[in-house]
């Protein structure tokens, strides 16, 4: 259903409870679909001398759109992002059986007032690689829609880093997992004044495995609203969602998760965890980990949340080792975020992400 035929979502809908559509729409005018500049994309190996063989970035064809842009047919953010991209889409294609030794970085540079990108992800069967997508730039509004499929038996690490300046970002993912695919997805947020992310993963083939990790750093007046939805439609599927946030200043961090186990998804094993570290009296953290289970023959489905301040005992321990208070605090925040960061990929990817996060920590905390 195109955007023009959809109704403005109500705040009774939990997806829009904390960030109304008006607050994330570029102009706040529901019916307006403004003109957007195109994001600049570039692909490179993360390591010097590394190769990107088997990975291409090209303009999407009609056939690509038909095959890969299938998620969110009645979802307002998906349809809005398709409308604002005005039919243009790029496709990141990974060849069947492609095996990349070095991680690949996709840079998405967003400049201008309003900037949008519709990116299709087409990962071939049995491909193996790590992809880091870095979204940066100084656009005042950024919209990113990623749709696509991870092929059968592929082994893929997919990390997205949001390092937008002070602008707002609306990010939506609609990704499908092939049979026996093993996917690790990571979201790192330390940029943008307002972020609304709606990440949806569908496991419609048996035997797939998905780990979604989030490391979110909020400071000053940031508003970070992440929604992660994982659908288990096929038997013997496995998922874990692990979300760590550190909230400072007057920031607000929202983590909503939905694990849906449909009837027939026998042997499904799913769990989600939200951990929030509250660092200031004006920060707020909201967690809504939801479960909908329609299959009785499951290995287990669970969720949990924990909120709390920096642990006094840990602070004391570090102070006895010579750390002053700000240093000890910074180390504990980094450790909190690092526990999910370290799960996002290989050692090379982890080192890269940690370096990036440490820089952000020193800049914004």
């Amino acid at each position, binding site marked *: 259903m195109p955007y023009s035929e959809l109704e403005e979502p*109500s705040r*009774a*809908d*939990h997806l829009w409870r904390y960030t109304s559509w008006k607050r994330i729409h570029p102009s706040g005018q529901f019916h307006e679909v403004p003109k957007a500049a195109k994001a600049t994309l570039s692909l490179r190996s993360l390591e010097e001398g590394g190769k990107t063989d088997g990975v291409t970035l090209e303009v999407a064809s009609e056939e690509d759109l038909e095959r890969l842009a299938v998620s969110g047919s009645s979802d307002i953010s998906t349809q809005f992002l398709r409308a604002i991209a005005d039919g243009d889409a790029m496709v990141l294609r990974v060849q069947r059986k492609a095996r990349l030794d070095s991680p690949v970085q996709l840079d998405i540079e967003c400049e201008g007032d309003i900037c949008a990108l519709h990116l299709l992800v087409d990962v071939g069967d049995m491909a193996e690689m790590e992809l880091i997508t870095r979204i940066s730039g100084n656009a005042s509004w950024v919209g990113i829609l990623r749709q696509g499929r991870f092929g059968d038996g592929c082994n893929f690490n997919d990390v997205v880093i949001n390092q937008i300046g002070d602008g707002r970002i609306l990010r939506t993912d609609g990704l499908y997992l092939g049979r026996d695919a093993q996917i690790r997805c990571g979201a790192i947020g330390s940029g943008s004044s307002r972020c609304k992310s709606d990440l949806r993963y569908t496991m419609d083939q048996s035997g797939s495995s998905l780990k979604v990790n989030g490391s979110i750093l909020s400071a000053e007046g940031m508003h970070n609203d992440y929604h992660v939805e994982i659908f288990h439609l096929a038997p013997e599927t496995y998922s874990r969602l692990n979300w760590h946030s550190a909230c400072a200043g007057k920031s607000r961090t929202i983590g909503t998760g939905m694990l849906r*186990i449909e*009837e027939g998804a026998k042997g499904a094993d799913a769990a989600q965890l939200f951990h*929030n570290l*509250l*660092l*200031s*009296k*004006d*920060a*707020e*953290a*909201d*967690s*809504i*980990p*939801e*479960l*909908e*289970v*329609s*299959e*009785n*023959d*499951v290995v*287990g*489905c*669970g*969720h*949990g*949340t*924990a*909120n*709390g*301040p920096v642990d006094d005992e840990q602070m004391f321990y570090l102070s006895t080792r010579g750390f002053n208070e700000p240093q000890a605090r910074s180390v504990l925040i980094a450790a909190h975020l690092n526990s999910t960061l370290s799960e996002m990929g290989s050692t090379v990817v982890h080192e890269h992400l940690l370096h990036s996060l440490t820089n952000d920590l020193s800049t914004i905390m």
Partner: protein
Amino acid sequence: MAENTDARDAVGDYRYGFHDPENHTIRFDSGLSEQVVRDISALKDEPEWMTELRVKAYNHFANRPMPTWGNMSMLEDIDFDAITYFLKSSNQTENDWEDVPEDIRNTFDRLGIPEAEQKWLSGVTAQYESEAVYHSIREDLEEQGVIFLDMDSGLKEYPELVKKWFCTVVPYADNKFSALNTAVWSGGSFIYVPKGVHVEMPVQAYFRINAKNMGQFERTLIIADEGSSIHYVEGCTAPTYSTDSLHSAVVELIALPGAHIRYSTVQNWSANVYNLVTKRAVAHENAVVEWVDGNIGSKLTMKYPAVILKGEGAHAEVISVAYSGKGQHQDAGAKIHHLASNTTSKILSKSISKDGGRGSYRGMVQVSKKAQNCKVNVVCDALILDEGSRSDTYPTMEISNPTCRSEHEASVSKVSDEQVFYLMARGHSEEEALALIVNGFFEPFTRELPMEYAVEMNKLMALEMEGSIG
């Protein structure tokens, strides 16, 4: 109310499904209007402020749309025009059981109400359709100044006390069904426990819908003054008809500093009753409020007992269990609002879904900016016993103070084959083994109930488990 030809099939062997011939003294025509609301108020000879409050609430109800969350398809089936909003079966509230009309007495005898009172309760209110038909309180409590009346008598005898607290915890505009209740409320309990008085034995209310297409809208207000304590127990049943009934109650609890209120419910409405209830408490300094909530019956239950922790050091606890069988949706949960420092709360929710039933936990925990050093613990466990059944959890945690420590955990699983095997190896049949496991699963709830209710609850669950194998 939508005709439900499968209702008898749906309610199965519901043990309270008997019904007596309707023998009412006043029955309003079905449907709701401002005039109906005014007529109810006039019939009860209420003060003007109550009539005006009812009318305001009615207008709010009429203009407010149905909720856009929860089981909307079931909610849409409610036909408000087909409901009878007031039906009076007895001319007055009796204090002597022998004075209650025989047909009503028979009903409650079959439910065991006077027997329970004789054995161990401090007081009993029995409500049949819209109004209380029987009421009794132990003399020693009366002497200590404990007021335990049906709500209509409470308004007549203590108008100032009722006016001071009525609608202060659940405003009429809180939600569509609280507005409906405020407009047409009838019956319910009014309790005031004076300072420092401890009501050692539980007091009990029993609610029964007997007539077809009946709406029951009782209103309960409990005020526990400083340092006092009370345990209130309520039970609910209805007969089985092929058309649906509506139960939409409002319960307001006020625990003043240092008071302790425990409110226990075993809800076993027949599976053609919509049970849409608003229950909320305010806990002042160092007060304790506990909701112990069992939901076995009804077609659709939407009930989220809430506690507002308003005073420093207050504590809230909600223990709830829900059983969802064929055609049932138990949408239950809890809400805790931490407004003051050093407040603590604990939620334990357990649900079982069977025969295509759906159990949902919907919860909210809020910790406000000013509430320092709060502690929150939420645990939800669900068992799905067969194919086609469903379990959902929708918890929300909103934490605005960095000194708060909150934990939430939930799990959905099936009955472990190993547990069943273990029990069968000790000589139990598979069905018995399942019933034992289910009773064990609900044990944290039943151990908080008075003994008779706990036994009843275990029997009910054993009955529900019958025929679950093969």
